[in-house]
């Protein structure tokens, strides 16, 4: 896009073992490129201490800014403070840090994903059983990962109102797909009346579907809901195995950072208000932890699955993002 780069921005990605994170590297690199910044990504492999070390190293490099998707939310607080003390602006991506000030936060909200999922699951149960009742198998990610715990929190909070819904929660250790497959295989035998399976990431849905298929189920026999909107999830919707994918607006989240990058790098003030981010409406507010732009997640169903705005369709928007003036 631009002849001369305005500088380098480091993106601290928590892991590359799930498709959302992989996609985020591509999207952030693209959008930041649109507004004139080079992006280098560092993968922390889901290790908080590794990410802390990476932050320390990057601070020594004095980049234009750091984008942080923390492995463990607030645990990165000391490094965020160190970076800002060194004059390097820090933008928070996807995983909100509220314990300390940062220069811009762009999130859909992990608890909110749980809310959206709960709404959709209530609808699906009602369609199937006539009322919001039945049995739901919730396959969590790793029980030591707050990301999955937040989704669980949001989901269960909203489901409290429906005592007729039994929720069985089992963790897929280390987010490993075949663990999820085994849980589904075992539970479908122990509880043949399971109506719906809710997995916390689309790559877990792959193994869950394989287990359902091996158990002789046909698409739709057991409902399936997943979160994060990865490409495999959308494929499963097209094939009828999955009913709903709760999408995290990856593109918009990334684009929002790019739109304000110049202002953040130049330490200018961000004006609260509503902004159009790739067609989604983002709300920028000033919170205790600094400017915060929130982008609403969406439910993907068979009806809208082909919409190119979903990152899972992997059509990174062609039109360049423009800096907010």
């Amino acid at each position: 896009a631009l002849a001369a780069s305005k500088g380098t921005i480091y993106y601290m990605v928590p892991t590359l073992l799930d498709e959302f994170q992989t996609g985020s590297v591509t999207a952030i690199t693209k959008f930041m490129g649109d507004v004139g910044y080079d992006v280098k990504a560092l993968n922390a492999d889901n290790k908080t201490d590794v990410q802390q070390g990476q932050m320390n190293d990057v601070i020594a490099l004095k980049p234009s800014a750091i984008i942080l998707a923390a492995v463990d939310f607030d645990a990165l607080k000391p490094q965020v403070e160190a970076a800002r003390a060194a004059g390097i602006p820090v933008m928070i991506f996807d995983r909100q840090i509220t314990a300390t000030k940062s220069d811009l936060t762009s999130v859909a909200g992990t608890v909110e994903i749980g809310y959206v999922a709960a709404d959709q699951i209530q609808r699906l149960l009602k369609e199937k059983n006539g009322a919001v009742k039945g049995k739901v198998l919730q396959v969590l990610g790793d029980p030591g990962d707050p990301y999955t715990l937040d989704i669980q929190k949001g989901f269960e909070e909203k489901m409290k109102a429906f005592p007729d819904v039994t929720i069985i929660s089992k963790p897929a250790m280390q987010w490993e797909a075949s663990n999820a497959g085994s849980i589904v295989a075992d539970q479908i035998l122990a509880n043949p009346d399971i109506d719906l399976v809710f997995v916390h990431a689309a790559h877990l849905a792959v193994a869950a579907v394989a287990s359902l298929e091996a158990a002789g189920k046909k698409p739709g026999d057991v409902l399936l809901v997943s979160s994060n909107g990865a490409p495999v999830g959308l494929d499963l919707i097209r094939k009828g195995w999955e009913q709903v994918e709760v999408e995290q607006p990856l593109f918009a989240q990334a684009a929002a950072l790019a739109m304000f990058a110049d202002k953040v790098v130049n330490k200018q003030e961000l004006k609260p208000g509503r902004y159009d981010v790739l067609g989604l409406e983002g709300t920028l507010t000033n919170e205790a932890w600094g400017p915060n732009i929130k982008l609403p997640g969406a439910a993907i169903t068979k009806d809208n699955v082909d919409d190119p705005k979903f990152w899972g369709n992997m059509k990174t928007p062609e039109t360049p993002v423009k800096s907010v003036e």
Partner: protein
Amino acid sequence: MVSPRRRAAIELVLDNLVWFILAVVLAIFSIAVPNYFQIGIFANIVEQSTFVATLSIGLSLLIIAGYMDLSIESVMALAAMVVGILFAKSGVGIGLTLDPEWLIVPASLVIALAVGALVGASNAFFVVRLRMNAFIVTLAAYIWGRGLVVALSGGRSAQELPPALRFLAIERFLSFPLIAWVSIVATLAFAFILNKTPFGRHLLLIGGNAQAAYRAGINVDRLTAITFVIAGAMAGLAGWLLAIRTSGATANLGVGMLFQAFAAVVIGGVSLKGGVGSLTGVYAGVLLLASIQTAINLMGLPAHFTQLIQGGMVLVAVLLDTVKLSIRKKLI
């Protein structure tokens, strides 16, 4: 003092103690855990054991020969991902098709085995030719192998293997899916090789005293290299089976199976010092671990406690095994 006949009986039990422990544990779970006692659950246990059991074959052979291989987990994932990328229809899969369709079974199998054997050969090169420490060489391969999975897939998943492959995970023979039978047959075949052929005998000798074996004219280097290749190929086979069961592959597929394989190998009676072990015992060890995992899946435990309980159960399982020693001492 015990009569010879009773002693023989006790010896038989002790020699196959893992199997007896397995039976006891299954009985306890069947009584204590609701829904545990049903053929479907037992079939699930056998099915879930498939991958670790297949991994454990090569690992056991290497440990018996006095080496080890930490790379097998990553090699399995790599083979699964290669199969996934080539033959799966969605995600990162490019969905190759063959004519006739069934050709995909041997083709994908050969590819998976080749991927595994290749990494095994690389490990062998460093360990046997360059005399590097097997632990560190295979640790490096564990890291770069998983790295290669991520690099190849870009962190994404491959999904939907064609039915010509998938039937191996769906069709059942005596209520176990075909993939489980593959691992059972492989275990039996290698158990035969270990116990009844010169190759197996030489592995035991090398594990017991490599210098003595070398002096006796056994080609220690060649045998060691072959065993690394076998371990790699078996990991490739495990990957092939895992891909078929998952109907594709994800970037973190099989994470944590290395530790399970090690635990199974030790529970199964293979000495980490080398020179001692049997593959049927190892298979029982795998089943034991899978039984525990299944019980945890079925018990209404809060998610946060599963790992705690898993660790405790492994300890108890091995504790039972050590009872063996004291019985042997006292009764014989």
